[in-house]
């Protein structure tokens, strides 16, 4: 397992995820106190990661819509 930061949650890189590659787990740099991706150029803190996830979700326009098929 890579170093995943203080809260021990493995975060997927939001930039890679935006291209639907979800298998790159971010590493944590304790000196700079930031996460970084070895596959692309993403660096950022937890808030920036979560913002990236929200941007990914934005494409799901019907995310909370329940359809009645039955």
């Amino acid at each position, binding site marked *: 397992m890579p170093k995943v930061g203080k809260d021990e949650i493995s975060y997927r890189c939001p930039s890679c995820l935006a291209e639907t590659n979800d298998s790159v787990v971010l590493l944590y740099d304790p000196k700079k106190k930031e996460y970084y991706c070895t596959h692309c150029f993403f660096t950022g803190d937890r808030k920036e990661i979560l913002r990236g996830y929200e941007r990914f979700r934005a494409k799901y326009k019907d*995310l909370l819509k329940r359809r009645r098929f039955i």
Partner: protein
Amino acid sequence: MPETRKDEIKKGRMCLQLIHRVQPSFGDFSDFKDFKAQQDMVHKVGLKISVMLTFHALFNKDIIRTLKGYRDEFGDELGISFHNLGDFAGERYLRIFNNEERELWLYSKEEKKKIIDFFFARFRECLGYYPTSVVGYVLDTFSLNYIKNSYPMVQTAICACFEEGVRVFHGCNMGWYLFTEGGPWWPWYPSKNNMLRPAADKKDALDLVALPHLIRDLALCMNGRDDFYGSHPHGVLRGLAYKGDKYPYLYNVHDQNIIQHKYNDGYSYCNIFAGPNWMAKKTWLEVPREIAVKSYMDILVFLKKRKKQGFVEDMYLTEFARYFKKNIRYRQPVAGLWTDTLFGSQKQLFWYIDPYFRTAIDMDQGGAIVDLRPYVGKVPVQMGSDTRELHDGSYPYLIQTSYRWAVCGESSIYSARVSCGGETVDLRDYRTKAEFTRGKNEHVLNVEPIEVDFRAARVVLESRFIFRNDGTITVERRIARIAGKVKKVQVQEYLNGCWGTIEYPADQRGIKLAISNKKKTVNIVYRYRSRSAEIENPVMLRATVPQVKTEVSLKPLNGANSGFIKEGFVFKPFFTLGTNKELKEGGIVRTCLKLEKMK
């Protein structure tokens, strides 16, 4: 989206299978508490569960004792899982097999035999009998044949992941060597020479029922990875198709899958199959554990509710295999008509499969054929370290719109162009919707009319695709209306074909193109030289594709003014068969697209 009538809904039911893999928790090969928690949930809800033993489980006396208890108390079926071998299976495995290869389908034939025999022997040693069900993410053709021939009691196997291949490979950082595109999305009788191809008859079939791993969203699987969008909550969470503890999309997938029985004589199918680690204390996902656990419990409760309502019948693996053999015939077509319920596009995709071919028709492209797999060619595909294909077990395509484009804006596709007053449009540039009607011998996809505003006239065109389970698709275009100063249009039916299995182009050289009328035949052998030929009143257009042992032809059923064949070039690596017909209002052009085994 068309309304579903209540009487239609009540005619059918979905066969459901829940399957757990007996896998230890991350970091401790002797710890099965996450698996046990998963079991407790299913038992609490009261649904049938089949449990598949991994290498670790087969060497853990405590878990074997627990599994016997599940079997005796709840009736759980026990079988074998061939997933996660090599280093994932631990030092004991490596001492025995001396190979770190992760998945069974990638070993050599001799190694596969050794591993299969070992698992079966060990299972019998632990449980006292041989299992009747086995699972992998993939069980390749050789392994499946070997299992059935050596252990004839086996009735069913999970052996492929629908449309997993190129897109999932890219989505997993180019590290997921599972390529089984071009197969069925629901259970099938696997053929002996390619487990991904539905058998044509009993002689062609391996005597067991093949199952897909999970059910995928058939509207979303063509334009991106499909492992995010399917029946298993883990995939939905992984694809971030949830917000907080809300995941309506997961229920939409299951409900939309249930109502597919409308198109399949009352039959529908679903499975959820996974190990326990996605909802363990430590996973590789950032999803909170409580959300993961809740999502699994919620979908179990939901399916139980649907069962009480009469829409779902839960079955063990072998129980379903018996049901399938009793109720589903060889050659029985399967159809699926799905609408996007997540992205807001409402895009509709239609799927059809029989022993001659599998195809997909995209209503966001005017009702164009965007995928065609010629099963009639019976292309043998092997997988493993001692095969030519290595990891690539996908069944080859003859049309694949997502994978084969040229910078001119053309792609591999079957569509039609309409010309009026000097203007030409392609129906693929228009959105529409469709309805499917299953008949006794004839199944029809009716595409809603497309209106085209030419400068000279407004034209309304209707399309119908007729399937007869004989290797043909009859495509009908009818000019419903022409309003304007021009009273005629020209309809060009065309097929841009190529063969391949992945996104990179395969070598098309050697494909033979032919076009004939009553007087002559013109041939072109594919050498990437952009040659073409056109003749009047064609009666047959054909491409013989030796790489997939298939002949694909277009036959104008009610005549055509002209027809053409076109060779591509390296920057546009596909061939074209096309016909032109002039039509007035009310006029129809009928074209038969036929697939035959190469002579």
